[in-house]
């Protein structure tokens, strides 16, 4: 079971991401995918110390801790410094995406995203050589 942490302050964006990633057609070949939802930066801070994730997907424009700050935090933390990370962003915020990549995000998906686009990126990150802390033991 692969664990994907989705950080976004929009409930329906999280729900659609969950639907896209947990769908059998995508999840089955990966041995199952579990999406864990965090409703914003602070909420993510709660989840981060508790578990290991195979991929983290985060929005940039969030009300509390913004996505860039979250990436910096994640990349500094012992536990998640190597966890593959993907940002979701709109085209209008290219500068923010650039910064996200500089701060250590591995990839980005432009919003609005299609199932294919999200699966393609997350699939690629999941396939990448496993990182620091193993997550097969939840």
């Amino acid at each position, binding site marked *: 079971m692969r664990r994907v942490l989705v950080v976004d302050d*929009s409930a329906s964006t999280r729900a659609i991401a969950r639907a896209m990633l947990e769908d059998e057609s995508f999840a089955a070949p990966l041995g199952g995918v579990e999406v864990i939802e965090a409703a914003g930066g602070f909420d993510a801070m709660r989840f981060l110390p508790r578990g290991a994730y195979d991929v983290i997907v985060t929005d940039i*424009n969030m009300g509390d801790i913004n996505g*860039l700050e979250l990436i910096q935090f994640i990349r500094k933390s012992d536990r998640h410094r190597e966890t593959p990370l993907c940002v979701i962003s709109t085209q209008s915020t290219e500068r923010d995406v*650039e910064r996200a990549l500089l701060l*250590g995000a*591995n990839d980005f998906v432009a919003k*609005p995203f299609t199932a294919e686009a999200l699966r393609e990126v997350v699939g690629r990150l999941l396939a990448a050589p496993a990182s620091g802390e193993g997550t097969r033991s939840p």
Partner: protein
Amino acid sequence: MSDTGGGSGKGDASVEKAREDFLSEAQELVDGLSRDLLLLDQQSRHGESDPDLVKDVFRAVHTLKGLSGLFGAVRMAAVSHELEEALDDLRLGRLELGVRVMDLLFRAVELYGLLLLAEKGHGPEPTKDVEALLLGLGQLTHQGEQGPQNQLAQYEIDSSVLGVLTEYEEHRLRTNIKSGVSLYRIRVQFSLSTIDTALDELKAAARPHGEIITYLPSDAGSDADTIALEILMASHAEVETLRAALTGLSLTIEPVKRRGAGRSSAPVPPPKGPPSRLALGELDDADVAQWPGDPARQDALAPLPSPAAGANPPPTVPPAAGADAAGANRDLSLRSVSQTVRVDIRKLDNLMNVVGELAMARAALGRLTDRVRSQPGLRPLGIELHRLQRTFDRHLTQMQNGILEVRMVPLGQVFEKLARVVRQISRENDKEVNLVITGAETEIDKLIVEELSDPLMHMMRNAIDHGIESRDERHLVGKPVVGTIALNAFQKGNHVLIEVEDDGMGMSPAVLVDTAIRRGLVSPAEAADLSPRDIYNLVFLPGFTTKDTATDLSGRGVGMDVVKTNIAKLGGVVDISSEVGIGTKITITLPITLAIISVLGVEVAGRSFAVPLANVEEAIVLDEALVRNFDGREALTQRGTTLPICRLARLFDLSAEAGADTRRRDTRACVVIAAVGNRRLGFVVDRLIGQQDIVIKALGKSLKGVKGFAGATELGDQRVRLVLDVAALIEEVLATDKERIGLKEGAVAR
């Protein structure tokens, strides 16, 4: 629906759920948008605009854009896109917030409402409006941001901080610096389990003194239970003032030094250079050159070491008070921030129905308990049962109240819409009107709120169109040029009262009577008998309007009679009072919830029924001498009018057994005069039992086909009663009179 799913059944269901989430989330965003815009509108009239509000508005539209794109709502996405561009200019200071922009924003909110309706399949696609708005937004011109850009360099802000500011945050920082305020670095530790409330406290305390630019989580001092934050705040206050304001919160505040004032050791990153410089002063250009934005090359770049980690050791933070609490709340820390769930109101209806079902089961149990208690040998058991039943009762009541509470929403939801309407109508009408709202927090059943907006909107139109005078007229009579409409809501017992009071010209009784006579609504003779209250109530008659030419505003074929009917459907009543030259006040009295209704208990041939009180005009003693018979229809001549009556005993075929006794003189029969809209009917019953608030329960399958009953209830005396469906009965009786309603006696006896 966009291409979002994958194919398996599970996927489809979750996509469908996501779509439902989308619609309600979008609705919430639009509601929030409307609220924020109204505030912004007020501020902009005083030449201010709160950056937080602008930011919220931008964020809402930004989210809407993302969502609508994600869920294939093409038009909404297009509108959001253009709107976002304009708002982006606005928040980045490239566009000025004026009347024109405000108008476009308000129109956008209206349009979102229509678009959402269309998405839900409840309305047509507002294609024209979309085009018009897009055109309007496209015409907005914006000025470039002026002023020097490099002032950020004057401050000793770590590159690790500057590097994680979003474009917007950076803009806010610049704007603040430009206006000459000081920057502060606040370090604070929160327990993860209590961070939401603690942060709200901090925000509230900080707000009067300036603007919080960003919250930066810091690895040092953060662990499984606590989070250390570095907050960058811009404030016009002195550090002591700020410390005093934030006292009680365990934090440290220090001013961010200006370079030159103190010693600066680190090289200053050029602020307007490529973002990479800001973020990573240490990275050389060769590294930066690797960022072509080409996804294919991204793999090679992953994952980058954090550049600033070594250069700027994180500040040490004094242990915060929250740290202890964090340990205790270890289990809570995995909980999500959001503590709310969205529930379809039909689910609550179902739950309420179950409560009704339980109440009936309880009634049956109660009868059984009484029988057990009446058996001499079983008395102790009966008492035990009785005690259990009391506990059951108590919990049942709690459950009922709990469900009712969940259904409640503040009236503010509909009041906000009205504020928009008032703003718009008064502008169209060239009148200045101030809407003063009190009691927006008053709560009422969600379903009632939904139905209230149309009647209230119509009342607002009336008040502005017919009530409030023009500026000149007001000036002439010495009134303030700006008219006032007060919208007050408050709870009174089991009812919510909503008052709409204007300080306009009022209504003259003489004019009202004259108009009613002219329109043939009352005869001159009838008019002479009208009480002052009756006279004001004339406006609720269909076809009544004092203006001969309907204006664009009020005369849209909807009169006060429709308002009255709509309110009556909700079990409410409308009252009106007015004084010439002073103003008019309309009061709506509504039940707090539709799940509980007030009924009048009546007895017919030894059986009891309940009549919804909302349908009852009055009850009088039946004087058989006044009953006339027209073509087999019975009617009562009452105060000059003829009232058709219907003997319930006969209608339900109950006249046989017990009926014979009660028809005697010892208990005189009563007539319950019921009305739906303008149709009235008198129900002849044997006895009135009294008034009560009940939970109405839908009839089971076996009685579903039976007309004439709205449901069943339990009146607290352990007997199940049927609640009359007055509208259906009036329809049936007035239409075919003699025809029997298809009701079997067995069903009533049950």
